[in-house]
């Protein structure tokens, strides 16, 4: 019979526990991100396919360009009247812009450069720069990761042309692209113009993996991170934490979201994530399988708050208490039916 090295055995168990805890942390992180409140920057009925979504950088850029063009005078009422072609990029039906998560809206700008061919002229094959159709009946075509979105006829002959969207008409109403955003969304996206001409842009500058550019909303969600499992003696522990601060400020509002404040109700996301994951985590790090049974005591300490000025986190700790090296080795051998 080979010699059992108790140290190596404990080391192996701790390594396995680290692995299990890391899996558990990832599970909590995933669920916490699902629960994390994301700023709903769109007006009701626009840009939604259910649930909230964040505005993409190109959407923001298009809107920001308009807002900047207005200056301090606000939206010009003559904006659409002055540029009749803009109105041609209109929707005559449907509930708003056919956007979905990840849609790209092109910046409003040189739309007048496009050539328009009325559909009743007939017989024209669309050239790369011409689009036909009856005025005011066009549906915008939007390039998105899943292809072009818009009316079927438009998609079929739009070819490589992508429409720029300035003014959108829907349900008999005409509104500017910026109107897609709620008032809160506009504030979050652009903020107030400060003395230096800079906008606050609160809620911006969130980098999401796999998505280029910045988004409005999702800073908190993206701030939920994992501190991988570490060992401290025979204890293995790791953390899921949330850090979210506004630009130029140190205050971590993740804490306010998790626990609430005098000004805002709590929208907990970390602890529900932990509670939902608890059973799964225990299974992931369950040391009671096979020969390890009885060698360790595990404790999942949950719901304990770790909060400082900069972070709020849910610790997930697995405490492993070995029964002494001799006892450990004896128990192991006994479980294997090789008692010595």
């Amino acid at each position: 019979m080979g010699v059992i090295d108790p140290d190596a055995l404990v080391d192996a168990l701790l390594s396995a526990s680290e692995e299990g805890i890391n899996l558990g942390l990832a599970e909590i992180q995933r669920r916490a991100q699902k629960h994390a409140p994301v700023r709903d920057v769109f007006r009701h009925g626009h840009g939604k396919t259910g649930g909230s979504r964040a505005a993409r950088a190109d959407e923001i850029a298009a809107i920001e360009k308009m807002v900047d063009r207005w200056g301090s005078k606000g939206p010009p009422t003559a904006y659409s009247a002055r540029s009749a072609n803009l109105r041609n990029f209109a929707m005559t039906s449907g509930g708003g812009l056919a956007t979905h998560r990840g849609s790209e809206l092109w910046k409003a700008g040189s739309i007048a450069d496009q050539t328009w061919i009325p559909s009743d002229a007939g017989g024209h094959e669309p050239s790369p720069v011409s689009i036909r159709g009856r005025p005011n009946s066009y549906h915008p075509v939007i390039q998105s990761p899943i292809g072009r979105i818009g009316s079927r006829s438009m998609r079929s002959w739009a070819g490589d042309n992508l429409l720029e969207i300035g003014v959108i008409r829907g349900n008999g109403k005409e509104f500017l692209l910026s109107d897609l955003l709620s008032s809160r969304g506009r504030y979050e996206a652009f903020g107030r113009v400060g003395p230096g001409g800079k906008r606050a842009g609160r809620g911006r500058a969130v980098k999401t993996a796999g998505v280029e550019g910045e988004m409005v909303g999702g800073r908190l969600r993206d701030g939920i991170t994992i501190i991988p499992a570490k060992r401290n003696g025979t204890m293995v522990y790791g953390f899921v934490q949330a850090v979210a601060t506004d630009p130029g400020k140190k205050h971590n509002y993740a804490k306010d979201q998790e626990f609430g404040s005098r000004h805002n109700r709590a929208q907990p996301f970390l602890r529900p994530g932990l509670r939902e994951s608890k059973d799964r985590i225990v299974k992931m790090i369950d040391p009671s399988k096979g020969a390890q049974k009885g060698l360790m005591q595990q404790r999942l300490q949950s719901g304990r708050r770790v909060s400082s000025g900069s972070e709020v986190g849910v610790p997930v700790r697995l405490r492993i208490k070995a029964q002494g090296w001799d006892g450990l080795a004896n128990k192991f051998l006994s479980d294997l039916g090789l008692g010595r």
Partner: protein
Amino acid sequence: MASTSAAIKRGLVRNARQNATLKAAIVGGIHEGFAPVKTRYPFMVYNLVAAPYGSLWGSRVIVALVDIWVYAENGVDASNVDQLILDAFDGSQFTVDGQDTLICRRVADLPGGPDVDSEGKKIYQIGGSYEVWTDQSL
């Protein structure tokens, strides 16, 4: 008929109101989520954090985690009321409609730092997390 965590919240508020000492201490009343501006201090705010279900044969266990906060104009008042809440809830089996309360216990302190309210008053936020276990037959 099965009932949800809403019944637990109702039971929790009922339990707080039935405690005369606590009721007298929370001048600003009991609020869910947050209290309106100009609510008098001290007041109590509760918020349901999570309420996962555990299904057994023929019965369902709900383990509701509820944060209960006290907001007061000074730390001593906040701590005193927090103690009254602890007395009223920790270890109690208050009535929950349609469910049997197995236990309610405080599982964590939630120490909050001083804050400033919308009127510029310095206020203290102190509270705890309570776990309420209930069982109901299906």
